[in-house]
């Protein structure tokens, strides 16, 4: 495969659940290696569904998704994908170390063999000292960091994040946004980041895919290449304000539409 072919190719993807709900309709998108793409939209517009289809956790009803040259969820090396859910989704009975070790354990790596990898992943998110703690001893932000460390433990090329910071307070969220940007830049990741926050999507991504509900579909695809490496200062620039206004308007259009459909 050449470097110019997209990492993810979605063509005419549709998802209809058994109860008849069309969660995603006719979604076509190609995502290049190294992109930071946000899926932005009101709740119920199929963002999670789209993300799960890319990861192979959900099947597609129609159309095709290929990831790294394979059909989503098939073939290839699943080490290539890391997934971060909205909740930290940690095993409460296991220590932070054991939680981050999980993906490696499932792939048959011994604990001793995995230790450097796990410790490295924990260091990435600033939790090196908390390897022995249990999830219940951690704050919401720290739990989310563990979840990110777990996703990073397999050194994935593609990181899928489903509203990972929606439940966190503003300050923790800003800090974690910066951390994710740093990981993305340092590890040359491709990230799909699901959010319903305009500001978050604009701050993080170099491309915002705006989705609308009923049925879930893509209505805008807005490139936002500027300003990298972005830091807190970027939030004060005119470029950021302009991008927020642009994306906000695009999103508002989808809400009006949803309203009329009622």
């Amino acid at each position: 495969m050449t470097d110019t072919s997209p990492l993810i190719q979605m063509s005419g993807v549709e998802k209809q659940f058994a109860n008849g709900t069309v969660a995603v309709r006719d979604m076509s998108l190609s995502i290049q290696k190294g992109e930071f793409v946000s899926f932005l939209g009101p709740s119920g517009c199929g963002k999670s569904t789209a993300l799960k289809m890319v990861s192979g956790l959900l099947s597609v009803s129609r159309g095709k998704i290929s990831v790294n040259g394979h059909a989503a969820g098939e073939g290839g090396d699943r080490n290539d994908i890391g997934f971060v859910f909205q909740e930290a989704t940690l095993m409460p009975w296991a220590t932070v170390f054991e939680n981050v070790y999980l993906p490696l354990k499932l792939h048959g790596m011994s604990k001793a063999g995995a230790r450097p990898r796990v410790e490295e992943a924990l260091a990435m998110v600033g939790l090196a000292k908390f390897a022995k703690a249990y999830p219940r001893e951690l704050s919401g932000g720290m739990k989310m960091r563990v979840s990110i460390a777990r996703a990073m433990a397999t050194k994935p090329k593609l990181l899928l994040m489903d509203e990972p910071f929606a439940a966190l307070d503003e300050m923790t969220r800003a800090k974690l946004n910066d951390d994710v940007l740093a990981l993305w830049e340092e590890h040359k990741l491709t990230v799909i980041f699901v959010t319903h926050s305009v500001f978050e999507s604009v701050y993080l991504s170099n491309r915002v895919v705006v989705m609308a509900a009923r049925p879930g579909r893509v209505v805008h695809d807005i490139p936002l290449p500027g300003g990298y490496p972005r830091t807190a200062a970027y939030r004060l620039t005119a470029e950021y304000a302009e991008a927020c206004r642009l994306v906000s308007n695009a999103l508002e259009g989808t809400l009006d539409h949803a309203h009329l459909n009622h």
Partner: protein
Amino acid sequence: MPTSITEPGLPAAAAPTEIDPRILRENRERRMRILLPIGAITLALALWEFLVWFYQVPHYLIPAPSLIAKTLVQDWASLAQSAAFTVKLTLLSLGLAIIGGVALGMIFALSKPVEMALFPFAVILQVTPVIAIAPLILIYVSNTFVALLICAWIVAFFPILSNTVIGLRSADHNLRDMFRLYQATPWQRLRYLLIPSALPYFMAALKIAGGLALIGAVVAEFVAGTAGQNTGLASRILESSFRNEIPRMFAALFLVSLLGVVIFLITSWLSRLVLGHWHESEIKREH
């Protein structure tokens, strides 16, 4: 911006002063947990003793605790043998209930059709009072011990089965997805996800089943009567009742209760051992 290291809620951050007041409070609480029930029971026994003495209640109506204790010592040989029989019956039925309940629970959790087909039988076994089935079982099964074992097993089995099924199904959906994403084998999923998720449910069932196994063992023996070679504590109670030996009845009753309490303490301790470090039900909260 606070770094993660300085966020609150650290597990090992308490500075070592001379004597940590937290430890003092914890010690006091632990002492109270033991002393308080012992004190209350002692007080109740003293009151009992006093009332029996004060009103001169004849011992064939209500014996004083001291007389019960004396009887316990005097009849220790026969009572201890009966207690051993009941212990054996209870533990064996509990063990078989755990094996059967967990095995069937796993099959149910794996296969919905099997569960739908077999669950009614389990329910019928559960809702039919064991005292009503016991005579039949005693007729069909010639070995009395085995018959008693079956009765006690029926009673203890159901909570283990139903909680194991619920527990194995209770695993977090996102965690299930996580295991699928990393292509866990069915065995890995069972070992690392389903079983730990089911443990709190299983431990709750174990606490209930332990008590139920004892109840089943005693009830079944009552139905079986004193005849034959079976000599559990229930038989001692029946026998004493026929002979109007009320103090001995109380002594046997005391042993049954003691057995129940010991089973409760052991299962509670096991539960704390297994879940104490992570599950909400067993975590001590600070106030």
